[in-house]
């Protein structure tokens, strides 16, 4: 059993309204030291696989087929 973490984030230059709204709210709440907020989506996936490499490969396919949209997203896969 492997536990995989897929982190999906926005590519550079893609607007991140949730991030910028959160930044604004934090500043308004008095956290003036906050200069930037970016949102990431994390999927924690538990899966069976013969090896770590296979697990990574399958997770990559998951990203390609569902978890991210290559037009705006970048992603990172970790085995934890």
């Amino acid at each position, binding site marked *: 059993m492997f536990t995989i973490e897929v982190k999906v984030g926005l590519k550079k230059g893609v*607007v*991140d309204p949730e991030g910028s709204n959160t930044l604004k709210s934090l500043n308004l709440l008095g956290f003036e030291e906050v200069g930037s907020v970016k949102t990431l989506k994390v999927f924690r996936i538990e899966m069976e696989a013969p090896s770590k490499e296979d697990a990574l490969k399958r997770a990559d396919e998951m990203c390609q087929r569902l978890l991210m*949209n290559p037009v705006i997203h970048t992603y990172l896969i970790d085995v934890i």
Partner: protein
Amino acid sequence: MKVSDIRVAVLRMEGINCEQETYDAFERLGARPEFVHIKQLEKRWPDSGGYRDLEEYDILMLPGGFSAGDYIRAGAIFASRIKSSVGKDLVRFIEEGKPVGGFCNGFQIMVELGVLPGYSSTMSDRPEAVLHANDSGNFECRPALLKMVNRGSCVWTSRIEKDEVRLIPVAHAEGNLILDDPDRAYARLFDSDMVVFRYCDTEGDFEAPYPYNPNGSRFNIAGICNDTGNVFGMMPHPERVFDRIAHPDWYRKRISRDEGDGRAVFESVLDHVVKRF
């Protein structure tokens, strides 16, 4: 083909929630809509009498809503289910020239499926565009003015004059259309007559900021079609303004025509099927 013979598949899965008004629009124009659950196409329906095939239909409609909760990304889960179960049937359907339409979530699903913009193939392997979060960061339920800019390729708007402005509401949180390879993609979209509706202001101007452009979409694009004009998606909801009385200001001009601004979209596509098939 007669209008009364036109079979429209109104596709649904959990979270789709504009199917009734979409169905009603076709029914009221005399066509034969039918609710089809994705499980019926997947042949996972509890009784086999409910199995359906795409080829039985003349038009495929993807209604609005929050398919599968819009979790992961708006429309992504529904798109992956369609692609893995009936992807090939859908490609055949499109290549036969049959119309496929999607409003709001339906448009998001079509973009995730890769059937829009679809310039490299009928259905691309990977999405070539995305409907990203609105610039405001909010869900936006509001009226929008749309100028019809298609020069004639789109079979869903033949009843609307070019440059005519219509009021059709939006209700979405992710409607900002972003194309892959923007430097070439937008030019290609305009050159190939794939842009159908653009947001404008009360003067008809495209320089219109929020809230006229409710999501920040570049070039104010609200709806596009593929290069053959039969596959069409738009963020606004024409099915919500089928009747005049659904307009936000119908009571201010009590004598105007009885039909709502969205009705022509349904009439156009039925016209097309009547003539073509």
